[in-house]
């Protein structure tokens, strides 16, 4: 019996040539007797003191200075725009559009440089509000009413909801987050299609596709979490889910446009994915399949 030099456990050197715990070589008595100093490769490594003294460079407040420079340039630009606009027509007319654009730039780009450290989520929310206001004002100043900006604002809000579900640490659980995204998308499409003459697109097209994506995402996530150790099963689940999704989307679109249940393009995807899934399935169960075939066909 010998002791492992690293672990301190006893090891039968005749049965184990290396320590089963740390793989350190275990020598038997004969090998120890034959050992000589010259055989031991002693490497004297000079330990260099890697702790180099780091000279701290003086940090200049470049960020704050940049913000102030941007502010000054922006105010100069706004002032010039106002002077030019006033000198041409004795009123503020076209200059309002570049001025609100400069204000948006100031609030979304310059302000973060000046303000204290805030979380990314705070900036995203702030920018979302600023962009919404900007597009609404832009639309109002150009068209004197709110028309196209309605769609832009809705899209920005949807994007904010998506980002919120990713970034908000208070929201826990993939299923809750996915459900929120699903509901937000449904509301978004409903509000968008309200503006259309034929608003059946929501109930017949968008809601079924959205629901299908939601169900398949949740299913895949659950399989992924359960079988995280089996990549073949995860791949085949993904492949099956993509097949179902393509099939579903194709059927829903055909039903909506031509009012018939037919396949136009999804069969091409299926032609690729079905053999792929079968191949992965075979890989995952090849021993069982071989055993079964050998038994059945006496191969």
């Amino acid at each position, binding site marked *: *019996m010998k002791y*492992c030099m690293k*672990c*301190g*456990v*006893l*090891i*039968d050197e005749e*049965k*184990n040539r*290396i*320590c*089963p*715990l*740390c*793989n350190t070589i275990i020598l038997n008595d004969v090998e120890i007797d034959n050992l000589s100093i010259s055989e031991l490769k002693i490497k004297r490594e000079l330990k260099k003191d890697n702790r180099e003294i780091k000279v701290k460079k003086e940090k200049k407040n470049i960020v704050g200075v940049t913000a102030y420079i941007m502010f000054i340039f922006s105010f100069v630009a706004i002032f010039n725009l106002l002077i030019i606009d006033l000198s041409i027509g004795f009123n503020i007319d076209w200059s309002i559009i570049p001025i609100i654009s400069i204000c948006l730039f100031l609030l979304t780009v310059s302000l973060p440089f000046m303000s204290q450290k805030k979380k990314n989520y705070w900036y995203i929310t702030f920018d979302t509000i600023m962009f919404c206001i900007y597009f609404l004002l832009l639309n109002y100043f150009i068209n004197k009413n709110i028309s196209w900006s309605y769609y832009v604002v809705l899209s920005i809000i949807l994007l904010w909801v998506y980002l919120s579900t990713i970034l908000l640490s208070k929201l826990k659980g993939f299923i809750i987050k996915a459900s929120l995204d699903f509901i937000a998308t449904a509301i978004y499409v409903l509000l968008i299609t309200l503006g259309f003459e034929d608003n059946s697109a929501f109930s017949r097209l968008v809601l079924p596709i959205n629901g299908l994506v939601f169900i398949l995402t949740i299913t895949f996530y*659950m*399989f992924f*979490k*359960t*079988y*995280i*150790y*089996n990549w073949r099963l995860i791949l085949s689940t993904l492949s099956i889910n993509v097949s179902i999704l393509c099939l579903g989307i194709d059927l829903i679109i055909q039903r909506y446009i031509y009012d018939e249940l037919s396949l136009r393009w999804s069969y091409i995807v299926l032609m690729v994915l079905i053999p792929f899934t079968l191949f992965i399935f075979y890989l995952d169960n090849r021993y*069982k399949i071989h*055993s*079964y075939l050998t*038994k059945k066909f006496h191969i």
Partner: protein
Amino acid sequence: MKETWMKLDNAAKIYPLIESDFITAVFRFSVTLDMKINKNNLLNALNTVIKRFPYYRVTLKTGLFWYYLEENNQDLEIYEDINYPCRRIIKAENNGYLFRVLYINNKISVEFNHILADGTACLIFLNTIVYEYLKLEGFNVSINEWIKDIESVVDKKEFEDSHSVIGKKHIKTHYNKVNIIKGVFHMKDRLISREKYIAISSIINSNLLYTTAKKYNCSITVFLTAIYLESLLEIQEEQVKKKKRKTVAVQVPINMRKRLDSKSMRNFSLYILPYIKPNIEYTLENIIECVNQYFIEKTDINNLLSLMVQNLMTEKSPFVRLLPLKLKTIVTPIIYKSVGVDTYSGTLSNIGMIKLPDSIEEHVKRIDFMLGPCPLTKCSCAVSGYKDKIYISFGRNIKEARVEKKFFRKLVKLGVEVQVENQGGENI
């Protein structure tokens, strides 16, 4: 067998639904004798002994809502122990049986699918085989409570699903919700090939381990659980950033037979889950104190009965009962992951001290116990005590012996002499 078929017991119902190449639901007991094993005598011993254990002479069948066990009259076989331990038991390769008997040199091993029985029942079966084998070898041997008398009549109570029988009696008094901690830490290492399972076992002087545990005023199980938890906690510190660290928990099975006076030879164990929170500076004394307190609290009979009733109620819920078997095989692994494996980071099963009659003890050198693989916890620990030794076996399906290394080094530091050996598999 009185009936030609029987239901799976309450604990066994989940195993066929989750069983795979990764989760084999197989555990092993091995007995090392002082003689080379004679294959023919071993097979004869098995054929004789199986008549006394009709509840193991079964095969798994598929029903509409549940799996069930049906009498199996196929020939029994024994196998040379040359493969990795605790491999999946595939019906086609094993004449439909849910256990296999293996031999190599001086060692007889029995691998049981958990569908059939738990560790205690399996050990009694193996001991009875050894008893019969020694008789066939011409030795005069006797029996004790760890061995069944093969001449005796099979007691009806041995077929009993004690979980259901005892659980039903306590539904009204013990139907409380048992809280469990979910989302615990699992080691991040990548799995090796699914066919491989590396086993390391150790031999420790039982008196020395007992004295060391007594220094901390705890039992051997509590002491080993605390060391296991501390090892896992250190692994988490190496692998996970401080903010993302999770609770570390170990699953410890509790044999219910003695507590509730059951003769069942099927599954009759419950599990407790001692745990420690992350990001707290613990000493071993602190951990032992936590684990000891947890053991005292959770092994109280009322707590265990509540757990048993909860398991029974889950099985009896209309949704579970009416869900077709095909759907159960899809849904159960997902649920098992979230309320099963996600509640523990490793398993430590201590079968306790095994006492054989003197006439057998003189031929039996050691008794080893090993748990099967789990792809999420990646490492498990089984403990058995025989004569003046404690045998601790670790099984893992990852390359590096992370837990084992920390666990045994800690024991050595505490003054316990540990002899380590490769038990099966390979040293990669």
